[in-house]
């Protein structure tokens, strides 16, 4: 037991910043792996989009207003997360918490709209089992929605850490990576409305 304690020497400050830089690179590598997943789902959607086998196509299923509202929520949430990042660097704890809360509410609103859209489609007999087009649609948009949901849980966890641990160096570094994740999801959504909703409603 004693060996455990002595085996963990305190890291000097300079090594600490190196560690966080390496973790940022590691997180970029993860995001790039995620980008590959999304790109392949986009590609699958692009190939399957015409395979409606007599079922409904995007033109009748998608709502431009709903997509515009989802886009607005996610874009504003990306900016509010940016404000949280700025506040974390300024060491302003209550501002970080407020911006994280606003970001969470906007993200939750996005998920609400998406789930409502999905349930409406499934209720109208246009679920993922209806056609190849709908399978690809639900896989692509659902994967993005899952990511956003995980991001929401992560925002809650980090809010808890800001409350209980304060804006320590590791917490700010984690907030930074959460920011990368959240901004990345907005980029994926730009792809979704440009590949799925807008062309579907032409």
């Amino acid at each position, binding site marked *: 037991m004693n060996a455990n304690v002595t085996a963990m020497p305190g890291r000097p400050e300079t090594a600490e910043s190196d560690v966080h*830089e390496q973790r940022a690179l590691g997180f970029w590598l993860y995001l790039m792996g995620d980008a590959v997943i999304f790109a392949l789902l986009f*590609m699958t959607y692009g190939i399957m989009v015409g395979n409606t086998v007599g079922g409904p196509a995007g033109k009748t299923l998608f709502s431009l207003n709903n997509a515009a509202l989802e886009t607005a929520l996610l874009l504003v949430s*990306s*900016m509010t997360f*940016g404000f949280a990042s700025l506040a974390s660097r300024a060491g302003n704890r209550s501002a970080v918490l407020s911006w994280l809360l606003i970001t969470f509410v906007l993200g939750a609103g996005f998920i609400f709209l998406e789930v409502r859209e999905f349930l409406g489609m499934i209720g109208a007999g246009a679920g993922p089992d209806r056609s190849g087009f709908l399978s690809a649609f639900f896989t692509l948009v659902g994967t993005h929605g899952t990511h956003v949901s995980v991001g929401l849980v992560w925002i809650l966890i980090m809010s808890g850490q800001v409350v209980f641990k304060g804006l320590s160096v590791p917490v700010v570094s984690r907030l930074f990576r959460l920011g990368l994740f959240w901004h990345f999801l907005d*980029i994926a959504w*730009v792809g979704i409305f*440009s*590949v799925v909703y807008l062309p579907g409603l*032409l």
Partner: protein
Amino acid sequence: MERHGLRSYLVGFALAVVLTAIPFYLVATHALPPSRLMYVIAVAAVLQILVHLRFFLHLDFISTPRENLLAIAFTAILLFLMVGGSFWIMIDLHTRMAI
């Protein structure tokens, strides 16, 4: 420091709003024929992704570590090969299977 400041997020947000509003407005009003509208959507999307990378993720050629840029460039090449190659194969298959 200023490069990653409040200004960066506000400028990025304003540009993103414009680049979102243009394609949504054109689709809502059917202002252009669909084939030409597709080009507008594609160009606006590519520009907006670049805006997000620059102003929200703060990527640039000065302050971003080289390894990060290399990882992104490598991913871009992978995506080009996988997406481009798959479309090539599937479109070719489609034309050959068509009766």
